[in-house]
């Protein structure tokens, strides 16, 4: 008994000290809720949020989240944030629908709710921030391809996931819309690797062998881009055929080093955490209303315009190359 209570006392006392950084009344307190704790992506988002706090001064970030990726875990976190009377909650949701009742309760008690990365149904939040928009992603993929060839002149092929993948098809459509702005580029074909490493590898191999004048393989899939880079290395075509598209720094660092890819893109979690926190702050301060069509400024990242679902895309995907890929490879 005494041992147990001693353990409890010392434990809770230590925790009390941790929590003792009580904020003054004027500080805006934003609860930044991750899908799960201990994931590099969300730790990076927290880094961005702290950056926003540092920049704005009167902003305090409470970074928290459940230990497993469940809706119920996040609801407990939301309840404790409501109880602490935070001014805003910025959450990356584990479930689009199950969080709605809890977040509605938060909004009823005057808390501003922003969802980011993974969204909440429109009735459960004020604003949703996507990492990017389809148009920006399509444009970025074409721009990356043009960057890989001399004077923007060359032949490209797209390695997609499945023929029925909604995201991929929209992005390819957006790429086609952006192509006329890059007259030097010629799109040879689109092939599908079904987001399977093995199939993507064979499709990329096929592209390299059947199109002798191919310059760039663009893969807007994190599976495809890695498989294609591997195929280029294995075929001994490094320096002749380049790979680019959307990929994860941790998986692509090696291929950037080998030269199979010069640069690729994906959202920047630091900017995402920064922007979500910034928007929450603006909502609390009344500088933003969270209405459809409104333009909200997000500090160093620029500004976003809300659509009729009160959601917006943050910015074009962030480009990773030899100068920064190592640093981000440790994050995600």
């Amino acid at each position, binding site marked *: 008994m005494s041992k*147990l209570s001693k353990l409890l006392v010392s434990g809770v006392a230590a*925790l*009390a000290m941790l929590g003792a950084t009580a904020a003054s009344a004027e500080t805006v307190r934003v609860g930044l809720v991750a899908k799960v704790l201990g994931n590099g992506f969300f730790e990076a988002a927290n880094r961005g949020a702290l950056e926003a706090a540092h920049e704005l001064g009167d902003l305090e970030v409470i970074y928290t989240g459940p230990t497993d990726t469940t809706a119920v875990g996040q609801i407990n976190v939301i*309840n404790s944030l409501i*109880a*602490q009377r935070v001014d805003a909650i910025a959450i990356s949701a584990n479930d689009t629908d199950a969080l709605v009742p809890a977040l509605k309760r938060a909004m009823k008690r005057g808390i501003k709710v922003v969802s980011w990365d993974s969204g909440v149904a429109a009735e459960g939040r004020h604003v949703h921030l996507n990492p990017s928009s389809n148009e920006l992603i399509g444009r970025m993929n074409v721009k990356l391809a043009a960057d890989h060839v001399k004077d923007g002149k060359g032949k490209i092929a797209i390695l997609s996931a499945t023929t029925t993948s909604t995201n991929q098809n929209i992005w390819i459509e957006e790429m086609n819309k952006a192509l006329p702005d890059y007259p030097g580029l010629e799109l040879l074909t689109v092939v599908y690797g079904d987001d399977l490493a093995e199939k993507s590898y064979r499709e990329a191999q096929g592209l390299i062998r059947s199109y002798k004048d191919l310059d760039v393989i663009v893969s807007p899939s994190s599976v495809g881009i890695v498989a294609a880079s591997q195929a280029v290395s294995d075929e001994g075509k490094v320096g002749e055929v380049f790979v680019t598209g959307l990929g994860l720094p941790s998986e692509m660092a090696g291929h950037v080093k080998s030269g199979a890819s010069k640069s690729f893109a994906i959202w920047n979690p630091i900017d995402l955490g920064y922007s979500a926190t910034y928007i929450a702050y603006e909502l609390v301060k009344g500088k933003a209303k969270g209405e459809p069509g409104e333009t909200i400024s997000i500090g160093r990242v620029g500004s976003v315009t809300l659509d009729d679902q009160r959601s917006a895309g943050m910015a074009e995907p962030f480009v990773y190359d030899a100068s920064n890929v190592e640093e981000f490879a440790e994050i995600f």
Partner: protein
Amino acid sequence: MSIAFSNVRRRGAEIPNKLEMTMMGRLARWETLLVCVVALVFFLNTIASPYFLDVWNLSDATYNFIEKAIIAFAVALVIISGEIDLSVAANIALSSTIMGAVATAGYDTPIIVGAGLLTSLACGAFNGFLVAKVGLHSIIVTIATMSLFRGISYIILGDTVYKNYPDSFAWFGQGYLFDAFTVEMAFFIVIAVFFWMLLHKTVFGRQVYVIGNNKTCAAFSGIKVQRVKFSLFLLSGLASGVAAVLLTSRLGSTRPSIALGWELEVVTMVVLGGVSILGGSGTILGVILASVLMGLVTFGLGLLNVPGIVMTIFTGCLLIAVIVLPRITKLIMSHSKKTK
């Protein structure tokens, strides 16, 4: 000082015998320790966070343990009888999925709830049949049905969601009876009283203890062991159904991953409540206290924004303490007797 326990012993579990209980014996119970720890945690929480002592906040806090506690009562009885039910969380998933399907078909709240409870009863009956009638071991049976029940709801739902519940359905998990007193709290109290009466005030309850201590002895005493066990699995199925109604109503939606991993938290509550994992002893009061304790600690740490992993460490330590403390006490006592 008389000996606090009767001499019917098996695998270290004793049948507590009220008649021989002394004042000291009563005070030195696991429940007393739990009351002290609950009071202590409550007190520390009050000091640690200015937000803790608020009626609405405490009311919100009850949501994080009530659904699990309701299942824990029934599982406590199952464990006291020497069996275990690990399929409770999967039962929630299947019941919730069926309720979602019924709601999507356009039926109103009473029918949705009825369908959920019937599904959970059917799941319980299936477990009960395999354990009591076929005679399979309950660990194996309920590990299998755990995958089976959740598997069915994955087949039905895949990565989609049921969210067409009528507004009146939200009453169970989001409603208030008066002020901050929630509907879930009312369910919790009524069900706790029911299980307390059942275990401690009825012949059925005594039979559960006897079966947990010695199955053979129970059978020779004229207890219908199979029938009692079947009823216990029905009960734990039904309790999961009630929890499914409350949780689904609180979330307002169903995904097949609902209540994932709850079976372990439920068993934790039961064991923390002083129920012997080997069967034969334990009380409902202990389970109530353990559930409140876990709820308070989760909420208190949440208020301080302590990552949930600390909570897991805390329950882990408590569980080890639960198992180790009685043994150490016994060792010390037998040692002091020898030296005398």
